């Protein structure tokens, strides 16, 4: 209990200081708000244009797609808030930036996850919320307590799945000792699997993204479940499965990170 309080107090301090240092560059923040808002709104518009031409994609009309898209941008934004440091792990490994964590008497994974709280991620949330509420209205989702809980489960699970994948990719640098950055490419993959219904892919691809690399859980399965109430092969809502998958991925990514730290060689000689 005392230990928990200790970790929470440090996490709060980390967060406070991260926010403070970001506010040192207010124009950056404003720039990101503008760039990201336009990006996601226009991004959704282009999908809508294309879907309008074809009528529907994989059996999904643009109303459901808006809901899916909004959900995806929201968990993307949250993942950026909590996991942005995973993008620079290659650099951290090469430059010996993990020395600092190793010199402090705290859990390494904790320090890594909480030392960088990224306000900029919230700039993704603004357009995310716009498209999300637009989608909610279009699919006529009732704001009932159940639905709110399902959305929260999905967002939490989705954020953890995204973060875990980034962390796996970043941790590779411990072994490869290269600064190679897969964030952009993995991001594209996330988009393809979380912003479009995965029913457009052959069955084996769907199975791959459901069971092996569980990206389909970020948005697709829980959203499908929420939109077509009641038709589930298992007795729990799929949003809860997302949360469980997210937690498992989280634990896995922490283990990989820890194993990687064992391989860490600092910088120089």
């Amino acid at each position, binding site marked *: 209990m005392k230990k928990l309080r200790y970790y929470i107090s440090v996490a709060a301090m980390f967060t406070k200081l991260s926010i403070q240092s970001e506010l040192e560059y207010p124009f950056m923040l404003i*720039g*990101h708000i503008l760039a990201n808002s336009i990006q996601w709104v226009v991004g959704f518009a282009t999908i809508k244009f294309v879907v309008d031409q*074809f009528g529907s994609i994989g059996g999904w009309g643009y109303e459901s797609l808006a809901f899916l898209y909004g959900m995806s941008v929201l968990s993307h934004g949250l993942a950026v808030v909590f996991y942005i440091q995973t993008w620079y792990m290659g650099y951290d490994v090469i430059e010996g930036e993990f020395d600092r964590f190793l010199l402090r008497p705290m859990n390494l994974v904790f320090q890594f996850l909480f030392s960088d709280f990224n306000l900029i991620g919230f700039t993704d949330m603004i357009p995310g919320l716009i498209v999300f509420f637009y989608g909610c209205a279009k699919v006529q989702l009732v704001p009932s307590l159940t639905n709110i809980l399902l959305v929260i489960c999905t967002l939490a699970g989705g954020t953890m799945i995204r973060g875990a994948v980034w962390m796996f990719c970043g941790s*590779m640098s411990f072994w490869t000792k290269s600064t190679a950055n897969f964030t952009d490419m993995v991001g594209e993959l996330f988009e*393809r699997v979380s912003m479009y219904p995965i029913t*457009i892919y052959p069955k084996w*691809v769907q199975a791959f993204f459901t069971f092996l690399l569980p990206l389909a859980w970020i948005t697709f399965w829980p959203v499908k479940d929420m939109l077509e109430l009641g038709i589930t092969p298992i007795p729990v809502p799929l949003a809860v499965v997302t949360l469980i998958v997210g937690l498992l991925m989280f634990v896995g990514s922490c283990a990989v990170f820890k194993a990687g730290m064992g391989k860490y060689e600092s910088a120089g000689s």
Partner: protein
Amino acid sequence: MKPYIFISKLRIQTALAYRFNVISTILIQCLVMYAMSCFWIAAYNGTETVSGVNQRDMITYTTISVIMGNLLTMGVQDRIARSVRSGSVALDLLKPVSIYGIYLAEDLGDCAAAFFQKAIPLLLVGTVIFGFPAPASFVHFLLFLFSFAIGYLINWILAALLGLCAFKTLRLGPLANAKGFIMKLLSGSIFPLWFFPAGFRRVLELLPFMNIYQLPLGIYIGQYTMDEILLRTGLQLFWCAVLWLLFDILQKKMSAVILIQGG
């Protein structure tokens, strides 16, 4: 010319050194390419043509677009930003070769390495899964190559222009974001502009971005008539010249500022 060629060669060697990087890139890019092709198959869902393009052409378009994306990676904007931030820019400008020439040589070296490491494997995988993404005709293919080369230059100059912004802002942050998003959505790399509503499309056709992906790809699949190709390639060259001029003026201005301040 010699130092530039040497630099390009060096870059090819460096790129080859990262085996893991290459293999993972190919894997992820294959997945992305595959996913996009599935998207079009699902969208067409048996329909013959939409907006004058059939499903086969769209898959070809997607395959070539993903390959092009791997050839069009630009290091120049980060290079400029980094050298401005570290202050080494003043030294760079004093070197007896053009620093921008060196950046271009580096990027061309990366492009050459990517051709062998990524483009060819992706083309092979694409061919195995969806059949060979053949161009409309051999003439179209040659025109595509020309158009792609000009598109490459436009893309490079845009990246370099963005890099020059670092002289004022030090960090590129949101600017780089915005550029990435424009490249993705407004250049035709994912969705060709002909699927967009007429008004939106006309605006995008006035901007230089569609010259990077949409124009070469449209030529490749034979979406444009010869007259249109001629006209649009002319416009593309015009954009290239205008952007180059702009870059040259700005670059000289920035250099002058730096050399007076002493970095």
